[in-house]
């Protein structure tokens, strides 16, 4: 049935597009393509193998994402697809697309900064408020509601907000 869909390149594109509709269950405005979690789609006959990369070591969303990919591919007409995780190269927040960053900001989450600013043990971070864009913000807690987020507060508009930690 799937073979009627078109050439291998077409098929691969359709499989990629289907997998790319899966969203992060904890940040539902971001797809796994926006996040850079979707790494590769390989066709083996009419079976699809999807490679994803884990974000944080203990992120409980990964199991759910893998399951949702299989469901999305079934819906798109691909039978018995497989999802496997690749560890190398390690995922970094630098892989989040520009589109993903824009969506994060619109959702009220400050997008991650470049990873080069991460190393200093007591380094100063400057994070702009996603609501009012003010740079007059302060860190409340480096560990937030999920492993990828820190909790900040804007001193200009007084709104607390999540910051997607650079990783």
């Amino acid at each position: 049935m799937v073979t009627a869909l078109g050439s291998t390149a077409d098929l691969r594109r359709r499989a990629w597009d289907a997998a790319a509709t899966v969203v992060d269950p904890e940040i539902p405005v971001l797809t796994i393509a926006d996040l850079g979690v979707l790494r590769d789609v390989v066709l083996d006959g009419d079976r699809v193998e999807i490679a994803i990369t884990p974000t944080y070591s203990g992120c409980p969303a990964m199991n759910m994402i893998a399951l949702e990919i299989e469901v999305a591919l079934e819906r798109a007409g691909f039978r018995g697809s497989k999802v496997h995780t690749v560890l190398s190269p390690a995922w970094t927040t630098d892989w989040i697309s520009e589109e993903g960053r824009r969506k994060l900001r619109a959702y009220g989450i400050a997008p991650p900064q470049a990873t080069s600013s991460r190393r200093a043990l007591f380094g100063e971070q400057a994070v702009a408020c996603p609501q009012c864009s003010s740079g007059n913000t302060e860190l409340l807690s480096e560990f937030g509601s999920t492993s990828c987020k820190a909790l900040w507060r804007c001193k200009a508009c007084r709104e607390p907000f999540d910051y997607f930690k650079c990783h």
Partner: protein
Amino acid sequence: MASANAEVSETPLVLYALRRADDALILGHRLSEWCGHAPMLEEDMALSNIALDLIGQARELYTYAAKAEGKDNDEDKLAYLRDVRQYRNLLLVEQPNGDFAQTLVRQFFYSAFADLYWRAMMTSRDTTLAAIAAKSEKESAYHLRHSSEWIIRLGDGTDESHARAQAAVDHLWAFTGEMFAVDEGERTLIHAGIAVDPGTLRGRWLTTLSDVIDEATLTLPQNDWMQQGGRVGRHSEHLGHLLSELQSVQRTFPGLTW
């Protein structure tokens, strides 16, 4: 019931991965005991987040240990079906949470090492270990910053918090030597470029410790007698109690799945 335990063929590589996996799992479990009990909400989330990172690292390391062994073990069997004497973690990480100072000093001693260790392991010739290191290194940097800030706050805080932090430093110090010990099997992995020699990290580890401890107005003990045994399965009495809780479901209902 001895037959209910997983048997593991501990080649140097399997043992190496297993030791690091056990460190991460046991420390992660200890931190998870704070969930719902931490002194403030932000700290409850912080400790639970760190626990989650560590348990995630443990899963990857167990999966790799099982793959390197090539038998029918997997991450669950290695975590849930080995008894106390089969665990290979550092004595440091199994020490009870005690008060908040003791938990944070334990975390600080470990994170200051893990941060250096994982960064060095990123260039391991073993591509899986290098990939796990690349992820763990980023997480360890956060863990170190978190515990460092607390050590300073507690040490340079009130008389009470200072006394408790100093007591924790004095008590846990003797468990730090084990981080730098290397046996024959590990020596071969170091020569093969798979493992890093932890001895080469000790100077920088001590510098991190001294910087923070000084700022916290605390002092590091002068004595250098170190307690060892965790790496070969000789544990303090605390680990058995911890495992009885961690493994209770699998031990009560063997083979149970969700």
